[in-house]
Structures are given as structure tokens and as C-alpha cells.
């Protein structure tokens, strides 16, 4: 290798999320920082120049902490960011690390009060004896400043590592899920939370599965789902009981016995679960596939998409290098017609649910000149390799795309490739 690239672990992006209008895009990284991008207003002069995303605000959300009681360090890595719908001029988002959820307010300031009566220009209090006239401060314009302030800190509610947060459609509550428990919070109350799911066995030696992801229904504020490491999804109704240990629906696909191996159990673990925008479907991601489930059919998914089935014969090596534990996310597009998820070698895949066509694209600097059209990629699984194809053995497993996001209404996607963020837009006709 001629070039040495300095990759700071803290810069690795760990979550990506558009807000509800798509105007803002937030990323969190392993160093506990949040960077928010804002889409530029489209200018009337350049109709063909779509709004581009530029940095809007950067702040340190979480710091590393130390739990003295357990002699454990708490990582500052941002596991998830979720936006609240906008209700006034300020933006609000939730960000979480392994143990603590924080509500951040991001607001603009473009005016500054000047001319205080009791303070001088530098803000120091003036000697009262020298004050002879009354002055009322006036607001004068200043350079735009975007400030982020932590409004709430929801701490000390999770023994295990938080993997998900989800804002409820009532906009008053949200949930946080760790390996064994899910808690319901009210945004206004930080010293209390309701435990709504608890799968911790009385005897930890009998532990067989953990919670891997959880999400509220987009419209029904009483309904949520959570996925497990065994490849199952449970839908719960909070009206049924205070503790939702008994599910309302249980989604599980019977295992294909021909696919059984050492690693069957761990590759069936669901790494992400997402409701469709319509609320009619849920999508789950396990190590090799993406599945779409109809809420009305529990015994099997309605669609299964192979993300990188060529890895099925490599599971042993992927276990050795820990790649088999990678947690890929999945996203819907705004109309629920296309789903997207990441893979290795900086590849990401899109599946059109209607046409059943799929495409593999690559997020890399070499292939991404501005305005260039992404070329579909193909992995050669054996036999003769064509010119543009990549063989499975040449894939770079250190370049993985775990986090992607899709604009809520337009064909704009954000793809996190290690420490780089790529934003792709549909080409303008």
C-alpha cells in the first residue's frame, strides 16, 4: 500500500438519520459526536442544482464514563439518533449511547441583545454609581449561530446495553431497549421510566435470547415491535397490560433444515427491525437476508431478499474475523416500494419490491465524482469472472456499510462507509 490513511476510530459513523422533513440529516460517531447536515434551499436561479447538504451543527453528545461500581467503562459511541417531529422553530433529537439517552435542542440564534443598562460592552457589571440613564437592550442581527443544548438526560435505567430508541407517535413518550428490557419514558420526566418488556430469566443460566431492536408503530401509539437474537419478532399492545411480556403477535419463520450449520443460530439473529411508513409491514435484517413481514401473517415473511448469499459458505472465516457479528441496518424508501441495506466492500443493496429488481452499488471516493452516476456492481460467485465483477475472495470485509438512511419523501440516500458519509440523489431529468 502506498497511501497510509489515518483512520481515527472515533470518527467511525455509528448512526445516520434524516429528520421527518428530510431537511436535516444527523450522524453520530464512535467518539460521541453528533454532526447535523442541513439541506440548502434550492435557489431559483439554478433549478437543476438540487439542494446539497452542508454541516449545520456539531456537538459532543456523550462522553466516556466510568461505572465505578462495576469497574466498567461506558463507551461514548452514539448507538442511535432519533428525531422528534418539529413543533416550533427549534429542532429536537434523541441520542443514546450504551446507557444514557439525551434529548438535544438545536436552535438558531441570529440576533443578539445589545445595550444593557447595567452591564458594559464586555458583559461586566457596571458600578451602580456610574449609571445615570436608563437604557433598554435592543436586539441586533448577528452571524447565524446554531447551538445545541441538552434539555433532558435520561440515565440509570438500563443495566444492559441500549440498542434502540423509538419516538412514539403521540410525541410525548419514547422507548429505549437494551438486551433484556424495554423502558417507556415521558419526555418531561427524567427520573422515572416504565418497564414495559422484561425478558430477563430468573436464572441467568437459562438465558437463550436477547432483544436486538425495537420500534413503535408509526401511527398506533399503543403498538410496538421488538426483535430477538433468535430471529423472531414480537408485536405488543400496551393497552393489553402494563408489562408487555406476553406478545400480541409472534412472527417467526420455520428454519430451513438444509441450511443448518454451526452458525445458523447466530446468523438468524435480527439486527434491525423497521416498520414501513404505512404501518402495514415490518422489515427485518439478519446476517444474510432482509425480510418483509405482513403484520397480518405471523408464520412467515411475505418477501425474502438475499443480500449476500455468497457468504453462506464463508461463515467460518467470518466467525474468525468477527464479521459474522456485524449488525446491519435496513431502511424503507418514502413510498415503501424500495428497501435498502448495506454489505461489505462498501457495497449497499437496493431491492424494488414491485419489480423484484435489485441493484448493488458501491460507496467509494473513486467511484463517486460529483454528478457521476453510480455504476451497478456485481459479485462473482464462482466460475469465470467477468471484467467488472469482483470475486468473493477479493471483498474487503473491513469496509462495511452498516448504517444507511433514506429521505422521507425524495430519492436521496445517506450511506455511512466507516468514517465517510456519502449522500446520493436521484439524477435530475
Amino acid at each position, binding site marked *: 500500500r502506498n497511501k497510509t490513511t489515518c483512520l481515527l476510530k472515533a470518527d467511525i459513523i455509528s448512526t445516520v438519520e434524516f429528520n421527518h422533513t428530510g431537511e436535516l440529516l444527523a450522524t453520530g460517531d464512535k467518539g460521541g459526536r453528533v454532526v447535523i447536515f442541513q439541506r440548502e434551499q434550492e435557489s431559483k436561479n439554478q433549478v437543476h442544482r438540487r439542494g446539497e447538504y452542508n454541516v449545520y451543527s456539531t456537538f459532543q453528545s456523550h462522553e466516556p464514563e466510568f461505572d465505578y461500581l*462495576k*469497574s*466498567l*467503562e*461506558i*463507551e461514548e*459511541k452514539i448507538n442511535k439518533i432519533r428525531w422528534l417531529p418539529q413543533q416550533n422553530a427549534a429542532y429536537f433529537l434523541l441520542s443514546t449511547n*450504551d446507557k444514557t439517552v439525551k434529548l438535544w435542542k438545536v436552535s438558531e440564534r441570529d440576533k443578539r441583545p445589545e445595550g444593557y443598562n447595567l452591564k458594559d460592552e464586555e458583559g461586566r457589571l457596571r458600578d451602580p454609581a456610574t449609571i445615570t440613564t436608563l437604557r433598554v437592550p435592543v436586539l441586533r442581527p448577528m452571524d447565524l449561530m446554531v447551538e445545541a443544548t441538552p434539555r433532558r438526560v435520561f440515565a440509570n435505567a438500563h*443495566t*444492559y*446495553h441500549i440498542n434502540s430508541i423509538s419516538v412514539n407517535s403521540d410525541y410525548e413518550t419514547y422507548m429505549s431497549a437494551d*438486551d*433484556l428490557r424495554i423502558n417507556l419514558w415521558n419526555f418531561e420526566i427524567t427520573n422515572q421510566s416504565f418497564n414495559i418488556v422484561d425478558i430477563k430469566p430468573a436464572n*441467568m*443460566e*437459562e*438465558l*437463550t*435470547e*436477547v432483544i*436486538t431492536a425495537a420500534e413503535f408503530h408509526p401511527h398506533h401509539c399503543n403498538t410496538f415491535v421488538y426483535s430477538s*437474537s433468535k430471529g423472531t419478532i414480537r408485536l405488543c399492545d400496551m393497552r393489553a397490560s402494563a408489562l408487555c411480556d406476553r406478545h400480541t403477535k409472534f412472527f417467526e419463520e420455520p428454519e430451513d433444515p438444509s441450511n443448518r450449520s*454451526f*452458525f445458523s*443460530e*447466530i446468523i438468524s*439473529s435480527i439486527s434491525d427491525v423497521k416498520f414501513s411508513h404505512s404501518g402495514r409491514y415490518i422489515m427485518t435484517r439478519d446476517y444474510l437476508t432482509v425480510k418483509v413481514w405482513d403484520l397480518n401473517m405471523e408464520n412467515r415473511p411475505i418477501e425474502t431478499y438475499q443480500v449476500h448469499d455468497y*457468504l453462506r459458505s*464463508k461463515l*467460518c*472465516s*467470518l*466467525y*474468525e*474475523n*468477527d*464479521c459474522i*457479528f456485524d449488525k446491519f441496518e435496513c431502511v424503507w424508501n418514502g413510498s415503501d416500494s424500495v428497501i435498502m441495506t448495506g454489505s461489505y466492500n462498501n457495497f449497499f443493496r437496493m431491492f424494488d419490491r414491485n419489480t423484484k429488481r435489485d441493484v448493488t452499488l458501491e460507496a467509494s471516493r473513486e467511484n463517486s465524482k460529483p454528478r457521476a452516476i453510480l455504476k451497478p456492481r456485481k459479485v462473482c460467485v464462482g466460475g469465470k469472472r467477468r471484467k467488472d465483477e469482483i470475486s*468473493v*475472495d*477479493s*471483498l*474487503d*470485509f*473491513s469496509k*462495511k456499510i452498516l448504517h444507511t438512511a433514506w429521505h422521507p419523501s425524495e430519492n436521496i440516500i445517506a450511506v455511512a462507509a466507516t468514517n465517510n458519509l456519502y449522500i446520493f440523489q436521484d439524477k435530475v431529468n
Partner: protein
Amino acid sequence: MEVQKEAQRIMTLSVWKLYHSRMQRGGLRLHRSLQLSLVMRSARELYLSAKVEAHEPDAPLPPARPADPRLHPPREAEEATTEAAPPDGEQPSPEPMDTQEAPGAEEEAAAPARCALRPAKASRKRRSSCSLSDGGDPGLIPSKRARLEEEEESMEADPDEEAAAAARVADRLQPAPAQSEGAFPNLAQVLQRRFSGLLHCSPASPPTAPAPREAKPACRPQDSVLNVLVRAVVAF
């Protein structure tokens, strides 16, 4: 035999990963520990069934046991213990482990001899592992004195530094002695019996963070990292 070797290798790897995951930032991850123990259990089941097949057909099978997972998943993160299946049902005399890297078949009886080969500074650990091979439990229950001595040792001895540091970490994460009696003799005994042949492998530095490598068509030959792990484990 190939199947047996492969299963053994995966067991070894899983134990190493389980152990190594303790020292990660952020502490033990329950999901990861569970997944590792599941793989270890599958590998162990395969290993045992392959072993049974390899023996004469009329050899006595291991006594029937309830279907509960033998391989106890790790306890809560704050306890941070790992357990292996209890060694019940296993043959009383350990079979020699024939591996490509071991100079020859090894027996458990070699354990005291191995202990003698260790550097003199690791006196506490040596005694523990010797008493383990005798089947004695008291050596495994950590005492305050043991911890202090290990800390002193770890400051002096380079070769044992990693193992001592690991032992310190493990000691700090120990459950109450009453609980550990059940867990640790099992894990250590299993390792002692299963992998005693590998202890003669030249100590190689374990891959601290296995860098993601390109997947190869076949699994690589096993690493000789186990001896570091076993040294650390028997030091409990």
C-alpha cells in the same frame, strides 16, 4: 477426525473470543457472549458426537442428562463469568490430544511437569493449575492474598504480564466464591482436559483485535493462542 478437529478448533476460538470480550471497552456484551456460547455449544455437541462415533460402537455413551443447555450462557454482565458444560459424562481418563503443532500426545499428568517449566515468578498461578489437575477446588477460589501477589508478579514478569492482567481483571469480576465453585472448576477442567495437548504450543501473541480479513475458501489452521488463555483461566 476432521470434524472433531474442526469442532475443537471452533470451541477453542469461541472460548478465546469469550475471554477476550471481557477486556473490551464497554464491558461484556450480553448478546455477543450469548452468541459465542451458542457456537461453543454447537461445536461441543458436534465434537462429542464425533468422538462417540470414532470409538467402538458398543462403547458406553455418556449418561443421559436433562436437555437443558449444558453450556450455561454467561451470567449478567456485572458478574461477567463464563461457564462451560460440566464435564460430566466424559471419559475418566483424558484422551491424548493429537494436534499438528503439539510435539506429541499429552496427558493431564503432564500438568505438574508443565507447571515446573513456568517461570518462577508465577508461583501462585503454577500452584493453582497444579491443584486443578489434581482436581482440587481451593486453588481456584480467589483470595485477597492471591490477587495482591498476582499484581506484584504482573509488574515484574513480562511473559506473564498479559495473563496476570487478565487474571486481575477476571478476579475483579469474580462472583462470590460460593457461586464460582460451580462455574470455574468446570470451565478450567474442560479446558485442561480438552486442550492440554495444545499447552506445549509456542506462545504466540493472541490477535488482540482480529483485523477483518478477506474470507478465505477454507478455514485457516488453528492459532496457538490457547496456552495464554489457559494460563489466564487456571489462574482464577
